């Protein structure tokens, strides 16, 4: 495989957007293209990540639509739908195109505009990724799968609601330093857990998970420009290499998994990504995890190999995952506070890591970050893409 580099990254602010879907995608794409500063070098292909446009926005064939907006014809174009892992999957498709020698420059853009529909419809569209006959018909939604997972993990490993709150507090704090974050507001332990009014501020969503354990519903887009070694050599700026990608799947219905508390696909995808990169979890300086629910940040931090099984909440309690800790997790604010436009999320994680590794993350810069790791968690853990990025010496 040929080496692949990220030459540029950009995104829109996440939140509620009045822009049409494809305009969101265009804004993020142009930000990434300007960041890459390709000059006369042509874009060979465009890959768009999205989950719900066919249903929610009544639009299909997003790859062709984006090529047209950006006047990139006759570039190749396609869209990738892989549930909440669409973003990192599209990124993988772009990387494969360059690694195989079929392309030199690929634009990967993730986009979702899901606030145009009401909450019930939005929750239902995401719930449609669950097993149709064994889960969905019973009223299963993503929060309910997360709630059942959380209860098991909390019961087995001694994770308490205060630990879940610590994830929320940390990620909200980080998001106040991120101008692209959906929610730029701090929360406190009193406000969401210990004060009497916390029961009102923080109502249950899927017991034992409450409102502040869940990501918001967001619109937004994120984009990266991937280039070959030959093109990277012509460009200015730090060189961020795609060091390794790993992907793994698991059973569709959660109840079929041998141990439903084990995020096996996260474990396998991460092992593959680290093996491809020739690196170990201890080499990682900064990580973006898929905290659609607070419990997932804790569980993924273990399954990715950063902490022993059942000890992620203890590392969190010790402050190791804060911005100034040993392994900062979700400096962007994570899905929890940065927001979760489903198809954009996997790309946005890699945008954040690119900025971090280039030293461009401003108020939330992790000092001397060289190796970054991202976990894009699709389904309820039945399709996971892990990515390791590394800044190369100039």
């Amino acid at each position: 495989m040929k080496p692949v580099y990220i030459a540029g990254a950009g995104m829109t602010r996440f939140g509620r957007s009045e822009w049409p879907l494809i305009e969101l995608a265009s804004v993020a794409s142009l930000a990434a293209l300007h960041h890459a500063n390709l000059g006369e070098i042509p874009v060979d292909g465009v890959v768009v990540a999205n989950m719900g446009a066919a249903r929610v926005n009544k639009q299909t064939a997003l790859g062709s639509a984006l090529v047209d907006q950006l006047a990139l014809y006759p570039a190749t174009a396609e869209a990738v739908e892989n549930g909440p892992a669409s973003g990192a999957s599209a990124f993988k498709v772009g990387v494969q195109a360059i690694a195989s020698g079929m392309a030199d420059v690929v634009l990967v853009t993730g986009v979702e505009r899901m606030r145009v529909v009401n909450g019930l419809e939005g929750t239902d569209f995401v719930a449609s990724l669950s097993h149709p006959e064994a889960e969905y018909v019973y009223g299963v939604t993503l929060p309910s799968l997360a709630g059942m997972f959380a209860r098991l993990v909390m019961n087995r490993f001694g994770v308490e609601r205060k630990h879940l709150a610590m994830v929320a507090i940390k990620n909200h704090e980080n998001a106040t330093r991120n101008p692209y974050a959906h929610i730029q507001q701090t929360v406190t332990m009193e406000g969401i857990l210990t004060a009497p009014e916390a029961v009102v501020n923080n109502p249950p969503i899927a017991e034992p998970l409450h409102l502040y354990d869940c990501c918001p519903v967001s619109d937004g887009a994120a984009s990266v420009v991937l280039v070959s070694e030959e093109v990277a050599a012509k460009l200015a700026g730090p060189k961020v290499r795609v060091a390794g990608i790993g992907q793994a799947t698991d059973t569709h219905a959660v109840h079929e998994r041998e141990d439903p508390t084990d995020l096996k696909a996260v474990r396998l995808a991460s092992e593959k990504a680290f093996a491809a990169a020739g690196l170990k979890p201890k080499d990682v300086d900064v990580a973006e995890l898929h905290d659609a629910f607070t419990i997932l940040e804790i569980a993924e931090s273990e399954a990715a190999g950063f902490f022993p099984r059942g000890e992620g909440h203890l590392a969190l309690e010790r402050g190791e995952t804060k911005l100034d800790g040993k392994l900062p997790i979700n400096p962007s604010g994570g899905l929890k506070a940065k927001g979760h436009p489903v198809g954009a999320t996997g790309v946005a994680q890699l945008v954040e890591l690119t900025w971090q590794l280039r030293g461009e993350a401003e108020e939330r810069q992790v000092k001397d970050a060289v190796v970054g790791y991202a976990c894009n968690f699709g389904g309820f853990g039945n399709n996971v893409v892990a990515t390791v990025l590394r800044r190369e010496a100039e």
Partner: protein
Amino acid sequence: MSHEVTGAKCTACGALNYPKRPVCRECRNETFDLVPIGGEGKVLTYTDVYALAIDYETRYLRLAIVELDGGARVTGQLLDDDPKLGKRVRTTIGVVREPGEGKVFGLQFVPA
């Protein structure tokens, strides 16, 4: 009309595939006997979910994963005012969703 929920029992290795699939999860064999899913078991985990999808008018749903005696696991609706991890329950068949005009029947769990 029967509203029985069925799984696929592999004719080669005996594994119960629920939900059904055309290839056995354990041994990749492709022939099965259809068997009814149900009986007694214990609550593996549960949740009260307030973030509901379309088709529900209730304020929340109580959902559970139950481990049936014999080892198979199933997801369904828990009809129990005093839910606990590990509690003994048995399956019944009831209306679990009403999309538009129709009714969908499926697994519900009541105290054993």
